[in-house]
């Protein structure tokens, strides 16, 4: 490790806030991308289930008429 202590690593000779902000925001943006992927996935699954439910409902109805 280049730095002698955790405190020095955090401070980085005064550049710490800039550097840590950049790494933090990168982690945040990447997480947001993954969360958005997850959110869309759940929405799409919900819509597929809707299609299945409607299909089953209409099938049951047809059965009931017979």
């Amino acid at each position, binding site marked *: 490790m280049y730095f002698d202590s955790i405190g020095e690593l955090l401070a980085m000779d005064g550049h710490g806030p800039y550097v840590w902000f950049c790494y933090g925001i990168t982690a945040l943006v990447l997480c947001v991308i*993954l969360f958005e992927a997850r959110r869309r996935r759940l929405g799409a699954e919900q819509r597929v289930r809707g299609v299945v439910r409607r299909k089953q409902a209409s099938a049951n109805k047809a059965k009931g008429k017979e």
Partner: protein
Amino acid sequence: MSIWTTFHKWGSPRWFYQFSGRLLPWLGGLSLLLLIGGAVWGLALVPPDYKQGNSFRIIYVHVPASAVAMGAYMMMAIAGAIHLIWRMKLAAMVMKAIAPIGASLTFLALLTGAVWGKPTWGTWWVWDARITSVLILFFLYLGVIALHQAFENREAAAKACAVLVIVGAVNIPIIYWSVEWWYSLHQPASIRFIGESSIHPTMLRPLMATMSGMYLFFAWAMLLFTRTEILDRERNTRWVQDIVCSGDKKPESRSVL
């Protein structure tokens, strides 16, 4: 197997869904490993730059984000061209999937660039050629997303976006070159540049790690978005319904993403 059968196989959403499903854990794991490993390496293990001090460590997130954002636009253009020329539906889904990821990474590149500018140039924003070009790239992404949202018809949205993305891709070299030229006219003397050539090889290695990590992350996210798009578009097919509903019965077997 001829190239055309490969092409058609790749064009099949179902085959692509199954194939990408096998890739996902590898891409995700490897990209996170490289990104986190590269970040630790770049943050704590490498010595600082003798001119910029520790603020140069931002390079390990800024440069990968900008590079992938640029490459993503070109990929989007290629996908758009494939969709227009061969009417491959999957290409349209890939194109739609890339837009939000590319826009987020461009935003990230701008933000980290601005924060990097403060300790090195003493100001948050400089109208320098490269930053301005990335800003324009961000605008291009936003235009594509806005155009896609404006259409109600999915097919028309995909085709219109494909045309726009290709027009943008043809324009990007012209825009970049123009901005470069514009900047050379106005270059203020107070800003001095630290060229990449001054970077020491030991400092370059973590960059290779985060760079490849970012590319893999992009591929991972792109597959996730594309797979969702496939489920959405093919929701009337049996195989999609089977995939979604088989997960319902045994929830513990469902993957996290």
